[in-house]
């Protein structure tokens, strides 16, 4: 009797709590602010990037004094813990309990895919400046998921493969985190490199959060390759770069990296281990473009550190959405109009110093910089462009329809051309 009695009382208590919540929720719907739900990994393997995502958004909102199109902006921040289950839970909370008008953010591709699957059902606009899973703007395009100021994973490694060929590299090995982003970055490089006559000798895949790279580095050292391409993000990037140097591979085999590996969020804690690593990206904080320099200077003045890709992308992403909102008079409740306006908006004020527009699939077209990590005058390391490929789309030089007929990059398909 006691146990069931308790169950009855507790259920009644829960009901009372729930009933208390309902009228409060209705009241919120009449309020004025634009509610933006920001999902970022504040804990987990990519926590360093996640924190900068939040800073990037706040940096922009500070610039516009917390108002877009005359309405106050209410930013609700949730931690997705670098984990797709948590990301899904938090997205649900932001949309259903927090009544956010839009979602923005997420870092890891698997978290983005989980949330995108969810917003497919609710129709909430979801902006992904950082999520790079190719298919979200290709074969499995979801109308309300837009990659403002973002990039698809293989977009930058296509020209990188071309650059590698031009350097005279004939054999490359890749080591990468074993998830969509890694598969796609490696696939982009492998496809263009092998189509130009190069050879991918071997590919290594490791789980996220690998502490010890010695089994992989040992094997890589034995291969006779001209360069190694490493696709790493967050803490994995830091550890790989450090272990690469302490293994004695630095200076022996050139290291090519995904831009996340030489991003400020990683290299600002490293020393000369990261010197000379080359990556392909749209953003190079050491570029001599005056707009980029101004952005870097102001960001450094405010946050005491050089801006990373994550800060830059979220800043430009929210700028893009804000520009669209200004054009529509701030009517953020009209989802269809918001999505259409964003797709048509061209971003002129971004720190890249050039106008950026979206292609027909909701993905931006950029000038891709091949950039190198060099030491600045004050001893800190940053990325400086070496050469540049203008107007690169997510499809490189391929025709979109033909490109989309090939399967998406995965563990089993890396676009490698059979010799």
């Amino acid at each position, binding site marked *: 009797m006691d*146990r069931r*009695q308790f*169950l*009855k009382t507790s259920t009644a208590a829960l009901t009372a709590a729930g009933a208390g919540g309902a009228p409060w929720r209705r009241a919120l719907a009449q309020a004025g602010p634009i509610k933006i739900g920001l999902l970022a990994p504040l804990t987990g393997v990519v926590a360093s990037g996640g924190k900068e995502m939040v800073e990037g958004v706040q940096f922009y909102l500070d610039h516009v004094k917390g108002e877009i199109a005359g309405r106050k902006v209410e930013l609700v921040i949730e931690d997705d813990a670098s984990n797709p289950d948590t990301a899904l839970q938090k997205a649900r909370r932001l949309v259903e309990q927090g009544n956010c008008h839009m979602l923005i953010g997420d870092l890891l*591709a*698997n978290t983005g895919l989980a949330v995108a699957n969810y917003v497919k059902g609710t129709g909430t606009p979801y902006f992904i400046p950082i999520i790079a899973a190719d298919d979200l703007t290709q074969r499995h395009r979801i109308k309300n998921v837009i990659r403002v100021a973002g990039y698809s994973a293989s977009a930058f490694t296509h020209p990188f493969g071309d650059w590698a060929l031009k350097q005279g590299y004939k054999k490359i090995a890749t080591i990468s985190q*074993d998830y969509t982003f890694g598969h796609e970055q490696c696939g982009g490089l492998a496809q263009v490199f092998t189509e130009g006559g190069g050879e991918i000798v071997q590919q290594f895949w490791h*789980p996220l959060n690998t502490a010890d790279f010695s089994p992989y580095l040992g094997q890589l050292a034995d291969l006779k390759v001209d360069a190694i391409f490493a696709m790493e993000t967050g803490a994995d990037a830091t550890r790989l770069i450090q272990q690469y140097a302490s293994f004695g591979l630095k200076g022996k085999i050139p290291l090519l990296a995904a831009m996340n590996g030489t991003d400020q969020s990683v290299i600002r804690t490293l020393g000369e281990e990261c010197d000379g690593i080359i990556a392909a990206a749209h953003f190079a904080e050491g570029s001599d473009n005056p707009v980029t320099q101004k952005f870097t200077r102001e960001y450094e003045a405010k946050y005491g550190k050089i801006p990373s890709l994550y800060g830059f992308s979220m800043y430009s992403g929210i700028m893009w959405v804000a520009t669209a909102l200004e054009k529509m008079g701030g009517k953020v409740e009209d989802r269809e109009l918001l999505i259409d306006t964003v797709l048509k908006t061209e971003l002129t004020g971004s720190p890249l110093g050039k106008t950026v527009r979206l292609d027909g699939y909701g993905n931006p077209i950029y000038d891709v910089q091949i950039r190198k990590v060099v030491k600045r005058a004050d001893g800190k390391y940053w990325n400086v462009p070496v050469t540049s490929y203008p107007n690169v789309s997510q499809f490189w030089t391929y025709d979109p329809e033909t490109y989309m007929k090939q399967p998406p990059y995965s563990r089993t398909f890396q676009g490698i051309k059979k010799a």
Partner: protein
Amino acid sequence: MMQASPQPIRIAGMTGSAVVVVLAVLAVAAALPLVLTSYQVGLATEMLIFGVLAMSIDILAGFAGRTSLGHGAIFGVSGYVVVYASAQAGLPPAVAFVLGIIAATLVAVIFALLAVRTSGVYFLLLTLALGMIVWGICLRWTQVTGGENGMRGDVRPTFLVTHRAFYWAVLVTAAVVSYAMWRFVRSPFGLTLLGIRDSESRMRSLGYNVSLHLFIGFTVSGFFAGVAGALYAMFNNFVSPSTVAPAQSVEGVLMMIAGGVGTLFGGFVGAAAIIALENAVSAYTERWQMVLGVTFILIMIFTPEGIIGTLRAILTRKGR
């Protein structure tokens, strides 16, 4: 010589007053979606699902004296099979649901075969290790399980797509499954398990096949964990390695402990408490796991019998 008091009327194994209370609880639970927001209904659904998981762990921990740290893996395997069957193989939801439960039961059989000869800390370690093997497979067998990315799919049948409809379906399932578990632990078989918990050597000397009883108990417990896992896959329409991770097993055990080991229905209370706490606290701080940890320490110090266990203890003390 005193007259024996008349036997109370028993309906479905419960006394008359208990039936009234159960019906009242079910009625209140069924009425919840009418007053809660859709997000809160989602939370309530999760509480029911994890309540079933915690109860399944309690069958072994509370009634056979063997705490398993591998039930998260069994729970998650069911989820993986359900999502795979409906998203990749295109099977109808009902078939996927059944396949998930069968898969979980098979995994439980394998675990059981290895674990029944051990007890105490060794049982804990063995089930933990087995759970980690399952997690490793789900994480690295990317071709089938999707690895880090997990698997997405529209798993629910069309008539259960809304929050409310799904909640009611889960409520009915949870009620049926809880009743089954309750009958199971009250049956002669369940009493044998209690005997094994209290003194294995005595049971052996009485002629009971201890290993067989534990094996069957583990398999039945795994079956119910599989039901919870299949429901969770339908709830999320998504499964990832974190669903089979050791952390999931630990959470299940913690929910059981918070409710009260050996109280069976404490599983629901523990699950509700922890899910409510997680949600309330994570709205204020990203360090909510620390708060959860501190809460468990407090539970262990002040109410080691769990919420319901402590209440029972208070009421029986008052009764004297």
